[in-house]
């Protein structure tokens, strides 16, 4: 029966209340632990296809008569177009159409950041389009850019009202503290740099628009494009079969889709708008830089009495102010907490969601602060965290649907016990040490999300849903879930996804929500199909339905009967069994979060400031793990990306003009394979008994969250230096070491003075 319910939906920390209609069998969760297929390592079902170059990405789409677009972008951080003439562009070889500000809402004549789109051209080849753009005659009025985030906050240049939240009384918390640590942390701007650059191919046919796009949300693109172009959503079809990385930056259609759509409309031809690597480094979003002014206070036994955070997010010209204070509010059982977040509006490229936006930055500050506090209190950092363990959500008093962070800490103990051994490896200028940091994040997913399951007469199964696999292995996980429910082997399941005209609505792949949103829908569709198979079998074999079940490709009865499933499906002939499933509601009145801890072992050359990460152990609690192999790849990917954030990646600007200086991958330094340490991934793997028919949460984002702080804390352990600014370049490392030496010098002087006095 269709049920109308009111539920909460959370994506990356944003909660919305909504009505939803769900049509779901209330299925009991499977027992915990590895099952037949679910919980066992499964190689990617599309691995071969991808490795052989057969998988079709948006970048591979070639349509007859397709034109190529190029975009004229502002070379200035803030400017006005005094005059723009595209007549020579239009006259250039191969050019079919041009767009200028006014022709599309994504083009502007008052660019507010370096890289803002101003005009566009479509030509027969991309080289012609690029060459034609060089003919554009633009007269700029260059204006003074606002680049300093603190200055922006002072002036009130904000993207939204400051977000201030307080619980308890922080003044009292400070006065009750026996040790107080105050520190300023900074994180840099980092870029997604997806391997497949942002792109779309648009084609109009009989008033219908087809959009082939590299995206994390087919249905979001469909809705936004339809709304903007004033089309009924059914007239927009969105396709993405394979996707070369997004990390949060491909949640919406982006300017390139609207440029391609408008040029396609004007020329009557398919148009590709694919950004270059340089444009990828300018105009596709970023993880904004932050300034974090933090305070922590505790009693001498380690009990936190106060946490305070004043955050400035350098959002950029547009975008939103992420919840950098989130970890401070959620992670510890501290009664007095005050968080204030300011989103500075600047003449810099807009931010975009980036793998746990806000929490990656905020966890760096908070978890470094906790270690500085532990040092002040002379307490073991792991002990300090356990003493402040939060048993319920202190923000609004809700119980957690499940929380096994304590179990993560317990499993961390044997690794943590290596600390002495690791330190003892120090030799000459190389100092070794170990650090840890905790992780909290959302990742519970939510409705609506739907799936269908089709069983043919050959006993093969197709899962049909218009979701996307953004490279995280969702196809494989969905196949595993359907296989498990139907008692079939994985090779009998196909997953059809990636096309809004071929399947029902499916969730966004952001906010670690694909598995927890889509998995339960696929399971319920498979269960619906299984139920029908059993019904048919009951009639065929003259048995009661309740004694029949599906196992190992067979229909088995309680009294020991067993028939290959094909015996039943063969009866269908051309017919099919159709199962329908939906994602049920989230548990009411509960908070669903993911948790974890990471431990880093590092070596620091104190003479040259070189930092080597030797080993990272990651222990995460994300409920039931569907595919341990896929899960460990997510952890490895998150940690490698986290190492880039920590040590080398930095989008640099010219401080005078706001020009982006690092536009290519030799200047913007992603980690190389040589920078990857040994990575150990462990999972608690306990289903969340309140969450859906699976008990699974998402894992896309958690692994990147604690990496930077764990490394920084390991550096402190190794050297005594407080690194407080990312990336930890040689310069930052040497600065922190110098500061530590000076502090030690002062302390020694103070001690000597003290000794003299007491003598």
């Amino acid at each position, binding site marked *: 029966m269709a049920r109308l319910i009111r539920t909460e939906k959370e994506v990356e920390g944003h909660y919305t209340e909504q009505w939803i209609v769900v049509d779901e069998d209330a299925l009991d969760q499977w027992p915990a632990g590895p099952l037949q297929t679910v919980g066992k390592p499964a190689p990617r079902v599309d691995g071969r296809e991808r490795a052989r170059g057969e998988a079709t990405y948006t970048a591979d789409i070639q349509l007859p008569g397709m034109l190529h677009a190029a975009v004229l972008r502002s070379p200035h951080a803030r400017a006005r177009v005094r005059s723009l003439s595209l007549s020579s562009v239009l006259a250039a070889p191969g050019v079919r159409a041009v767009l200028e500000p006014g022709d599309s809402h994504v083009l502007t004549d008052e660019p507010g950041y370096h890289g803002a789109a101003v005009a566009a051209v479509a030509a027969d080849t991309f080289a012609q389009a690029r060459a034609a753009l060089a003919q554009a005659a633009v007269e700029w009025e260059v204006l003074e850019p606002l680049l300093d985030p603190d200055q922006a906050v002072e002036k009130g240049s904000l993207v939204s009202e400051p977000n201030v939240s307080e619980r308890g009384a922080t003044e009292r918390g400070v006065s009750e503290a026996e040790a107080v640590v105050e520190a300023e942390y900074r994180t840099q701007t980092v870029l997604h740099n997806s391997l497949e650059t942002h792109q779309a191919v648009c084609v109009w046919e009989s008033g219908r628009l087809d959009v082939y796009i590299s995206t994390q949300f087919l249905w979001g693109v469909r809705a936004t494009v339809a709304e903007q172009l004033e089309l009924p959503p059914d007239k927009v079809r969105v396709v993405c079969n394979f996707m070369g990385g997004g990390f949060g930056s491909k949640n919406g259609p982006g300017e390139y889709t609207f440029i391609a759509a408008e040029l396609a409309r004007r020329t009557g031809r398919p148009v590709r708008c694919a950004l270059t690597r340089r444009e990828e480094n300018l105009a596709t979003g970023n993880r904004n830089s932050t300034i974090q002014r933090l305070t922590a206070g505790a009693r001498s036994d380690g009990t936190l009495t106060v946490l305070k955070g004043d955050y400035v997010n350098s959002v950029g010209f547009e975008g939103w102010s992420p919840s950098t204070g989130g970890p401070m509010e959620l992670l510890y059982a501290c009664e007095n907490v005050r968080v204030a977040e300011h989103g500075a509006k600047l003449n810099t490229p807009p931010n975009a969601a980036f793998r746990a936006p806000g929490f990656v930055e905020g966890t760096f500050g908070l978890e470094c602060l906790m270690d500085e506090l532990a040092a002040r209190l002379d307490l073991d950092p792991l002990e300090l965290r356990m003493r402040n363990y939060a048993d319920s959500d202190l923000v609004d008093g809700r119980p957690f649907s499940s929380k096994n962070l304590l179990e993560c800490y317990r499993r961390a103990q044997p690794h943590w016990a290596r600390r002495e051994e690791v330190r003892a490896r120090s030799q000459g*200028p190389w100092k070794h040490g170990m650090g840890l940091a905790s992780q909290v994040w959302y990742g519970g997913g939510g409705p609506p999300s739907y799936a269908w399951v089709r069983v043919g007469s050959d006993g093969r199964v197709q899962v049909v849903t218009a979701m996307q696999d953004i490279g995280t292995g969702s196809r494989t996980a969905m196949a595993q879930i359907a296989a498990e429910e139907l008692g079939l082997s994985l090779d009998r399941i196909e997953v059809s996804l990636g096309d809004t005209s071929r399947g029902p609505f499916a969730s966004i792949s952001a906010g670690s929500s694909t598995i927890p949103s889509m998995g339960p829908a696929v399971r319920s569709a498979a269960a619906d199909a299984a139920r029908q198979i059993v019904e048919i079998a009951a009639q065929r074999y003259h048995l009661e339905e309740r004694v029949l079940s599906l196992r190992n490709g067979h229909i088995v009865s309680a009294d020991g009967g067993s028939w290959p499933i094909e015996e039943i499906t063969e009866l269908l002939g051309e017919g099919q069994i159709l199962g329908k499933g939906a994602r049920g509601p989230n548990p009411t009145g509960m908070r669903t979060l993911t948790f974890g801890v990471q431990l880093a072992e590092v070596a620091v*050359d104190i*003479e*040259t*400031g*070189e930092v*080597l990460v030797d080993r990272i152990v990651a222990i995460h609690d994300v409920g039931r793990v569907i595919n341990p192999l896929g899960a460990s790849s997510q952890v490895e990917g998150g940690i490698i990306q986290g190492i880039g954030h920590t*040590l*080398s990646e930095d989008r*640099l*600007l*010219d*401080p*005078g003009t706001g*020009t982006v*200086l*690092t*536009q290519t991958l*030799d*200047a913007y*330094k992603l*980690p*190389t*394979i*040589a*920078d990857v340490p040994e990575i150990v991934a462990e999972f608690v793997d306990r289903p969340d008994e309140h969450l859906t028919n699976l008990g699974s949460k998402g894992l896309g984002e958690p692994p990147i969250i604690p990496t930077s702080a764990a490394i920084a804390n390991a550096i402190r352990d190794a050297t005594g230096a407080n690194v407080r600014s990312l990336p930890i*370049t*040689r*310069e930052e490392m*040497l*600065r922190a070491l110098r500061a530590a030496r000076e502090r030690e010098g002062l302390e020694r002087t103070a001690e000597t003075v003290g000794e003299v006095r007491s003598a």
Partner: protein
Amino acid sequence: MKFVRPESPEAAASSLGNGSVALAGGTDLVPMLRDGLVQADELVFLRDVVPRGVQSGRIGAGTTLAELEVDPELPQALREACAASASPQLRSMGTIGGNLLQATRCWYWRLRFPCYLHGGDRCHARQGTHREHAIFGNDRCASAHPSDPAAALLALGARLQTTRRELPVADLYRLPTEENRNLTALERDELILELDVPTPDASVYLKAMDRRAWSFALVGVAAARFGAETRLALAGVAPVPWLLENPSALEQSTPLPGTAYKVEIARALVRRALASLPTT
């Protein structure tokens, strides 16, 4: 754009200039053509005319870095400098001749800011973002020379044979002046043909980078000992490869606010390089 394959070094050299540009492995030149940093109507391909390979201390300028890094005949410093350069893909294409003549990586220059080196009247890096820039010879242009092998060859006292003359590698480079903003002394129609590399008693190359591979030197230090004399040369510290008279010359450096850390790194690497050279 035309692509020509000349028959002799002389023919190649004489065709250069006036829109004709020499192309070796293309790893630096091709991106610069694409970015409009170099204009060319004609590419003169050097593969058939510039020697390639190593023979008794003489290196063909067309030898790739990948070939040099594994040649047991060559001094350790040069092999290590080649191996520490760029990536395996780039080293398989990039030649030593092209490496010595690669353009600066200064981001302002690469983004075509009208800076001093481009003929303008100021250095944008000085007041701007300059963490990768110079600590020596930086009063006009503060760029940092990107070549690792050049520092090794400078410490080794290598000599170059061009289509016109023979010269020490030190003389290939010059600091820019008001009248002449070039960083090399090569004529426009002159080709490097060979390098003559003396064999030291011992040599070494050490490199500090932002990550473990595929990264230009923040500081590179080459040391080569010939009998009682040890020569030191640095990469990444000045607009040209920099000969360091002695370790204490580092105290005369003129770092920018954002490059002072390089002095500290250089001190450590110089100390380590010297310590690592076996004494007789």
